[in-house]
């Protein structure tokens, strides 16, 4: 008998009587968006991210020009930032070629108030490795696109289909050495979240809810 058949028959023999999954709809989305934004900013700051409020995209350019004064590699798929940044949509699909990226600027579909996480899909990353291999990461999120908690996150993304997607919450970190917190373990050393008062991400990336 194949291992597959073997395992499945053992489970069929040993499993308990059917128990239905509970109804978790009570969790739902029960928060207001203003409260969400305040909580998101507080929690994200608490886990090591920097929050910058902006009213338009040129403010991102100014901020980044002040931060990065050398010629290090910056990549973004946001059309308005091309010029300051290399066009992320043109980057060849060989992930190793991104090893020298200093800063990547990408969009998030939404943020999560309870944990400061941002939902980023492969479409927004351009190349999957980009938000992880870059030395520093900046994520742009619309101020209206903050949901209360993880239940609301999965309600919002229900039915969406992504080859790869991730919640990213703060910079990469470790406390493996005597529980001392160190930022920048393997992923980005820092995370800046630009909270924008207008929608710049492509509407077509949005799942139909």
């Amino acid at each position, binding site marked *: 008998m194949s*291992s597959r058949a073997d395992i499945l028959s*053992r489970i069929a023999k040993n499993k308990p009587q059917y128990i239905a999954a509970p109804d978790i709809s009570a969790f739902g989305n029960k928060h207001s968006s203003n409260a969400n934004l305040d909580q998101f900013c507080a929690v994200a700051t608490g886990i090591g991210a920097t929050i910058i409020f902006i009213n338009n995209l040129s403010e991102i350019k100014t901020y980044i020009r002040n931060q990065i004064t050398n010629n290090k590699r910056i990549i973004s798929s946001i059309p308005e930032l091309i010029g300051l940044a290399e066009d992320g949509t043109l980057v060849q699909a060989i992930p190793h070629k991104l090893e020298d990226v200093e800063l990547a600027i990408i969009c998030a579909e939404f943020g999560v108030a*309870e944990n400061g*996480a941002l939902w980023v899909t492969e479409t927004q990353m351009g190349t999957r490795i980009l938000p*992880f291999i870059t030395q520093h990461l900046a994520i742009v999120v619309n101020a209206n696109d903050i949901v209360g908690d993880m239940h609301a996150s999965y309600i919002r993304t229900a039915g969406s289909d992504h080859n790869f997607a*991730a919640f990213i919450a703060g910079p990469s970190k470790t406390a493996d050495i005597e529980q001392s917190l160190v930022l*920048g*373990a*393997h992923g980005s050393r820092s995370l800046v979240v630009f909270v924008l008062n207008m929608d710049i991400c492509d509407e077509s990336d949005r799942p139909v809810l």
Partner: protein
Amino acid sequence: MSTQKNHAELSEIFNKDEDRVNWHDETLWWVRQKRDKASHAIPDWELLREMASQIKNNVLSELDTYLIQFEAKATENGIKVHWAADAAEHNQIVKDILDKNGVKQMVKSKSMLTEECHLNHYLEEHGIDVIDSDLGERIVQLAKEPPSHIVLPCIHKKKEEIGDLFHIHLGTEAGMSDPQVLTETARLHLREVFLTRKAALTGVNFAVAETGEFVVCTNEGNADMGAHLADVHIASMGIEKLIPERKHLGVFLRLLTRSATGQPITTYSSHFKRPRKGQEMHIILVDNGRSTQLGRPDFRNSLKCIRCGACMNTCPVYRRSGGHSYHTAIAGPIGSILAPNLDMKDYADLPFASTLCGSCTNVCPVKIDIHDQLYKWRQVIVKEGYGDKKKAAGMHAMDWTLASPSLFNLAGKAGRWTLKHAPFAVNNSMNPWYKHRDMPKPPAQSFTEWFKTNRPQ
């Protein structure tokens, strides 16, 4: 893992350095306190635990159906699904995939399942080099030790010891023990590894039957660095890691990291659904005793475990005996109810490595009745004849003594006389009770004697 030494003997080695035991104890208690703070900030915490537990009840009662559903969806998504009945088959499948791709070097992110299967050892024997990329795991790998904790693999190590390891293996300055510097050194060393490995193996935190996707959670970003740079991504998962629907991730991701480290969520919660263009993605579904445990009504709830480590951080025995004392891949209370299922004889000591205080059960995010199961395993182990022989002899002697009033009185007298006139006869290392305990002061008389003189007339 077969070993001659049991938990008590191995704890004795750990307990030789009292300062270190205190430090270990306090560090883990601090993590437990962070968990409390994070969980208390969630008004729905108890409801979440209950829901998680109930979702897992459903998973266990429909596990075969969900596995078939997951296999179909994942295959449709372009992932190759493999089935492994035991550790040996899992290791063989990994090796076959690597052989087929001509890979001699692999990078791995945290997977307790591969520790359970002793994959690294197996691959090394077959000439395949494996590098663990989680910082804590890399440290214990350099020290040639297993992880001592499922979430904090090198929690037993002092930074000076880690500094020495890095000096020898990674060329840091002698005596350098600054966590910042050591982490930066590991970052540079492992970047080189990530960029040059053609195959990466990751664990799986949750797999969704509904969609065929799986979720991997890390703080460091090492699973993603490995997987997205490699041509071949292998994900190893225990069959109990399945959840029915995507929306259930909301419940488990809220519980997992708050319970583990007190963070609201891990830095990265990566949802893998399809391989990237040109990449091969494999999932190995591993049984290795899980379907047997499913058939033990008293112990099947242990399969609900989401590997957060909260039961270890809170356990007074774990905190003071260290993870290595459990001589199994998963230490602490949960490991002590999982291991006897794999080998009742080798792990007969583990259910006894507990005070049964119940703190593990209280913090468990999926409400596993851990301390009840520890107690029940003790009954099974003794009944099956794997109990401690000395303890059994002592119990028989006690049974015999308590059954006879004259013997009982005689034994009481002898005991009081010895404690009073010849304490050295019991206050020595021959008496296991005397280890870490003072013998009591002998009372002047027994209760029976007292009652005879003081009974109401």
